């Protein structure tokens, strides 16, 4: 009996490799985990070499990165806090990618969402906190959503490349933010760092009980799961994927491609706008130039690393959140510049894209055929 169960347990562990059905079913999934994973390890190795050339011990580097990202409960909380907005900005790239669009303007939608949410909160100071918070969510989503919808509309109705337009809109969003924050929305008391007035301590969304992680993480998780369900388990998502795969086929079968683009872009921008709202309502308490912290750009990387899969965005965002959380420790303990996180992100991005060439070429995952 006991030997039998041991054997079957072992069989479960080993046999699938010999069973062609298993590989046919899960080969592609294994590839999607194995190849980005290998790319990630390759990127970490390359970054180690880079740091070694800079005169630091790479082993120290990996140790402090682990410590700063996942080593203690404190660093876990820091990591998760940073992952929350990144999940949302990654969705801003991953959702339009289902339609074959490359949107890289999540940072802009985040800023506009933050501005809209702050305006809503400042205009509704009389209301009870829950009402204010709901209004902030709605305002943030609409603000960010419309911002990316603009890129989508320009693509659909004017043929303007959405990658370039969304990036240009980042700079325009930043200019609008600075203009308002230093102009009509400025709190006269903010001298060195022009900011809007505070939304009020009562209106902050607070932390998940027992942790220092704010509720934004839950917002992110809900949006990611909802996006996954929308894309893979609804007719709408199916239509979007058809249109993304072959736009002419989609038109022939009568899909409203324009409507698909608008809706997806609105949802994508809404996610990034929500990230902006969270940064205001959970971290900053007001809008100022600090909000342009690069979460939008990290989101692009996360979306590509998770191969535009909304569910895979969650673990990847946590991983990248960990890398950015460890930046402070690397700075203090190893004396590396704060930009080392940016360098590592860039290296990871390059490795992950280069690894696209490997798909379908790993022999043992394709069976003997």
């Amino acid at each position: 009996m006991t030997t039998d169960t041991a054997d079957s347990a072992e069989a479960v562990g080993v046999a699938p490799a010999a069973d062609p059905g298993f590989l046919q079913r899960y080969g592609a999934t294994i590839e999607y985990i194995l190849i980005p994973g290998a790319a990630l390890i390759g990127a970490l190795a390359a970054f180690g070499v880079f740091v070694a050339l800079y005169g630091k011990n790479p082993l120290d580097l990996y140790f402090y990165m682990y410590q700063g990202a996942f080593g203690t409960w404190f660093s876990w909380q820091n990591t998760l806090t940073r992952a929350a907005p990144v999940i949302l900005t990654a969705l801003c790239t991953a959702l339009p990618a289902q339609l074959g669009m490359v949107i890289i303007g999540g940072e802009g939608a985040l800023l506009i969402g933050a501005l809209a949410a702050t305006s809503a909160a400042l205009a509704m100071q009389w209301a009870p906190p829950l009402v204010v918070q709901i209004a902030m969510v709605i305002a943030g989503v609409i603000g960010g959503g419309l911002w990316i919808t603009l890129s989508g509309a320009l693509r659909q109705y004017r043929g303007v490349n959405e990658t370039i337009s969304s990036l240009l809109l980042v700079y325009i969003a930043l200019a609008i933010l600075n203009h308002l924050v230093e102009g009509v929305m400025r709190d006269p008391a903010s001298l060195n760092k022009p900011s809007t007035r505070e939304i009020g301590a009562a209106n902050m969304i607070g932390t998940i009980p027992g942790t220092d992680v704010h509720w934004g993480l839950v917002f992110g998780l809900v949006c990611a799961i909802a996006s996954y369900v929308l894309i893979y388990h609804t007719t709408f998502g199916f239509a979007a994927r058809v249109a993304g795969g072959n736009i002419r086929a989609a038109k022939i079968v009568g899909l409203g491609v324009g409507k698909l683009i608008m809706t997806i872009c609105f949802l994508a921008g809404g996610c990034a706008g929500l990230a902006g709202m969270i940064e205001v309502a959970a971290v900053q308490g007001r809008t100022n130039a600090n909000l342009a912290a690069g979460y939008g750009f990290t989101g692009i990387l996360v979306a590509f690393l998770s191969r535009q899969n909304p569910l895979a965005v969650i673990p990847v965002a946590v991983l990248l959140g960990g890398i950015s959380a460890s930046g402070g420790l690397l700075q203090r303990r190893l004396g590396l510049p704060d930009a080392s996180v940016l360098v590592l992100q860039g290296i990871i991005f390059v490795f992950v894209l280069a690894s696209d060439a490997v798909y379908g070429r790993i022999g043992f995952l394709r069976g003997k055929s």
Partner: protein
Amino acid sequence: MADASIGLWTVPLAVLGGAIRVSTPFLFVSLGECITERSGRINLGLEGTLVMGAMSAYGVSYLTGSPWLGVLAAGITGALLGALHAGICSLPRVNDVAVGIALMLFGIGLAFFLGKPLIEPTAPRLPAIDFGWWSDIPQVRAALRINVLFLIGVAIAPILYWAFKATRWGLLIRTAGESSDAARAMGHSVLLIRLRATMVGGFLAGIGGSFLSLFYPGSWNEGLSSGQGITAVALVIFARWDPLLCLWASLAFGGAAALGPALQSVGVTSGYHLFNAAPYILTLAIMIITCSPKRTLTGAPAELSITR
């Protein structure tokens, strides 16, 4: 006396001077991108190349005392980044737009990392030629203090125009951009042509970056470039992949970018940030006007993924 007499002319003069000064990075990046895109590939990473070029030019100029060596170093850095882009893109199934985004983030990160110790020291700058010696008005003289790099850029534009039209290399690049099958049938390696085109493009973009750190604004800091690289990429589309139009477009963009500082200098400070966003708004407006969903753009290389 002279000051009072020009009065309102300050703004157009400052815009003119600004157009010449500010347009140089636009010019170099757009000419470089023009070469790359004509070969059938788009390099969105030139924003990163620009920043890396600015950093390496400043560093080399500081260490060697020669700004021209800095310019050369910036060009070489740019060419290396171009080679990296082309190398990754020549792998099968790799998307050139995505690689460009990756290299944009990588280049900016690397420049900030390596450039950290360069924020404090002062490096020797590039000299300017005084074309305004005939004038007594300081604003005119300021507007006409022109850098040699600008003149080089202005000279490159018609040379490139001619080279695309009349030389063997120009024809090869255009063939690779219009139909990679045709280039292959002629016995040329499309990947090699694109590698060279991207490297030359990166070289020029790197030089554009050296102008930022060595002439105007003339220092190295992390806020040095804010989207000039990506604006220049959009500008190539607007210029219909024509080097001469790139020159005029760069001047127009430089003028737009100079509007904010010019208005600030006469005391118009409200809306400063919005005026600073003028080049981006202008780019977007021009793309909206000139693009059309119904047809591909005239002059667009047929192999270019971004126009399909």
